[in-house]
């Protein structure tokens, strides 16, 4: 019998485990995938000439085993071990409504391959549902989250600049990474041409300097390699393996089991409370149960919904914690993939080192107190960078041979700017995860059916991203402007959210203000599933803040004997 079970060892589960362990709870983390070791399992030592096939996964294998995962930019032979084989982990989507579900099943989950961009949501984001009526009103506001953002930022280490923007609150930052000369020029010109826009350096979960509490965990400063998605042996970016799980481990309160797929949450029919979870061993398919006084689901947005829906019983025929019928609904991702690039005349300088971070242009439409100038609600931000065209494009985008070609590629290329929009997707109950009526995976667990599509508001945001992106590049004098108009299928932003939303009203939400299931007082959900709206900021920091906050309240409730 454990005090707490945490299902999932990724971004949210790692922080939930750390916080619960540090509060003295004997905690079991259950990971469905295999064990990975920080450092020993990574591929970051591979030199460019040591990467198998120059990075290319064999084409037939890619088509057979990774038709979905291959859509993610970070998939290569250097990172192949971190992605699921779609052929082994199928799911269903309706005809004509693709959803790209990008996953990694191993200890640490997607915290190993994440993009590391780290932003707070603001008061505006947490009020959005209440103001325009889409989705359930968040039961918390910025003031509830702010101390937990502080707490998590200090622990994980976030590099960034203080900007004083209401729509993107500042945090507890380590020194910001610098902009290169062309980016400084871009910032000056864009901010002059568009006074409502701010161009800032990205905020990222990298240690630009270490603090003693990072060093105690064996973490080192960023080496500017940009090999991050291979895993970082320096522990320079926050992941469960480099940071949260080691912190949990040193309390002496942590137990980890891997290769154990959670099938369902077990409840006591008399009390309605969770008593533990049922798991299936991924290798032997043997079934086991684990018992605990509280359960945290951090199995990722779709995985968590799958477990709840599969925790059916006579008492809860449509799944656990689902009296509202909201489990699986309001699935969101960020609008992603639409953007612009162009060649820009810039300063005659170069840079040294590969900065694993770009520029950010925070949301500038529909800000509180301003008259809306657009035909959509909510908004988007831009993410991008300026860098010199690299050898690959210099060599392959134009003809040429021999000595002349060598001379062309040898010199740093021209400056290029590229920016993509990350837009808010509205919560919509029809965007939904359900269980397949008959198909099961090789462990006998019903497949998920993901029915999710962009709506009218998202399409209007896409149009505006393109118009504004182009205008911005024109303002800096870009030539050869290329536009990527095609919106990616939802899912490919890899910011799935919303399938067990927080809310004030148990009739239209799954979780209360403490991420506690309205229906099951000792069940907490703190991954992306909890999100009542998506904002347009990269969401991991918010999952971590919610996880830490819920762990605090859960342990207080346990002490008080109320759960």
């Amino acid at each position, binding site marked *: 019998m454990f005090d707490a079970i945490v299902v999932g060892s990724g971004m949210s589960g790692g922080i939930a485990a750390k916080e619960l362990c540090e509060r003295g709870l004997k905690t079991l983390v259950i990971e469905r995938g295999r064990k990975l070791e920080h450092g020993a399992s990574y591929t970051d*030592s591979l*030199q*460019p*000439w040591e*990467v*198998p*096939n*120059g990075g*290319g*996964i*064999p*084409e*037939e294998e890619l*088509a057979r085993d990774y038709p979905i995962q291959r859509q993610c930019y970070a998939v290569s032979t250097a990172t192949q071990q971190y992605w699921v084989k779609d052929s082994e982990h199928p799911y269903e989507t309706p005809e004509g409504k693709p959803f790209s579900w990008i996953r990694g099943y191993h200890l640490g989950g997607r915290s190993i391959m994440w993009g590391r961009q780290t932003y707070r949501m603001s008061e505006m984001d947490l009020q959005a549902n209440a103001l325009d009526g889409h989705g359930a009103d968040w039961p918390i506001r910025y003031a509830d989250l702010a101390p937990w953002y502080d707490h998590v930022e200090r622990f994980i280490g976030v590099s960034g600049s203080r900007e004083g923007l209401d729509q993107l609150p500042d945090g507890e930052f380590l020194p910001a*990474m*610098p*902009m*290169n*000369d062309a980016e400084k020029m871009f910032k000056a010109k864009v901010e002059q041409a568009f006074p409502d826009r701010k161009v800032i350096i990205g905020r990222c979960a990298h240690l630009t300097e270490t603090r003693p509490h990072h060093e105690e965990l064996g973490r080192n400063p960023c*080496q*500017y*390699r*940009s*090999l991050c998605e291979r895993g970082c042996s320096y522990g320079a970016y926050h992941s469960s393996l480099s940071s949260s799980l080691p912190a949990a481990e040193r309390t002496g309160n942590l137990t980890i089991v891997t290769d154990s797929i959670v099938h369902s949450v077990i409840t006591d029919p008399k009390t309605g409370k969770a008593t533990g979870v049922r798991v299936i061993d991924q290798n032997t398919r043997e079934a086991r149960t684990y018992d605990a006084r509280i359960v945290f689901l951090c199995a990722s947005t779709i995985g968590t919904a799958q477990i709840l829906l599969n925790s059916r019983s006579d008492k809860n025929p449509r799944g656990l914690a689902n009296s509202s019928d909201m489990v699986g609904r309001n699935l969101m991702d960020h609008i992603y993939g639409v953007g612009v690039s162009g060649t820009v005349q810039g*300063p*005659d*300088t*170069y*840079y*040294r*080192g*590969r*900065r*694993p*971070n*770009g520029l950010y242009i925070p949301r500038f439409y529909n800000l509180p107190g301003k008259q809306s100038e657009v035909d959509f609600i909510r908004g988007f931000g831009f993410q991008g*960078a300026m*860098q*010199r065209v*690299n*050898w*690959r494009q*210099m*060599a*392959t985008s*134009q*003809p*040429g*041979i*021999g*000595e002349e*070609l*060598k001379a062309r*590629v*040898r*010199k*740093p*290329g021209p400056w290029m700017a590229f920016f993509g929009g990350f837009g808010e997707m509205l919560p919509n109950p029809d965007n939904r995860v359900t269980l397949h009526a008959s198909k099961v995976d090789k462990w006998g667990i019903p497949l998920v059916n993901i029915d999710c599509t962009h709506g009218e508001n998202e399409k209007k945001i896409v149009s505006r991203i393109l118009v504004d992106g182009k205008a911005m590049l024109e303002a800096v004098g870009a030539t050869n402007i290329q536009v990527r108009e095609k919106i990616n299928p939802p899912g490919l932003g890899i910011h799935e959210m919303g399938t067990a939303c927080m809310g004030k009203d148990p009739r239209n939400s799954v979780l209360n203000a403490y991420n506690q299931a309205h229906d099951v007082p000792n069940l907490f959900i703190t991954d992306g599933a909890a999100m009542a709206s998506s904002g347009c900021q990269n969401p991991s920091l918010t999952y971590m803040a919610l996880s830490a906050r819920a762990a605090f309240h859960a342990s207080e409730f346990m002490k008080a004997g109320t759960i």
Partner: protein
Amino acid sequence: MQASALNRRETLGGLAALLGASTLPADVLAKAAKADVRLPAPIQSLASAYADTLMPRTDTPGAVDAGVPRLFAALLADWASPQTRASVLEALQKIDGAAGTGGFAAKSAAQRRAMLAPYDQANFADTGYRRLRELMLVLYYSSEPGATVELRYEHAPGAFEPSVPITAQTRAWAGAGYI
């Protein structure tokens, strides 16, 4: 020139024989067995001649010095789908055909250069040719000589210096771009 280039795949097969097959794990043996998948000699010489003309030895190593022809053969065996392999090999053979009597590989370096420069321009839009060219170039610039002697590469720069003056000696960075 190709004869002198060390064939890693042959070496691996030879290693298995040397150590005694039973001491090697199954996946290594499986990979070694695939070492039989080699390009026929005339196609291998053609690939070498093309790579050498595209990226010749100058004051820095060329594609052949960097082992690109054997890496190319390995890529076709280990990575390419049958369609890609066919299209890339067809592109190579078209170069050979356009070279006239005796074929491309038999010509002098100067003759190959004179023939390939306009051919490269004229066929740049051809998918198969573009792919062939790209594979050779990516292999060259990702190789150790390509990345570190022709270009510059630091595996762990240790810092980000945002403003470095460009001089006549400045070389482009190899490896991935940042972000």
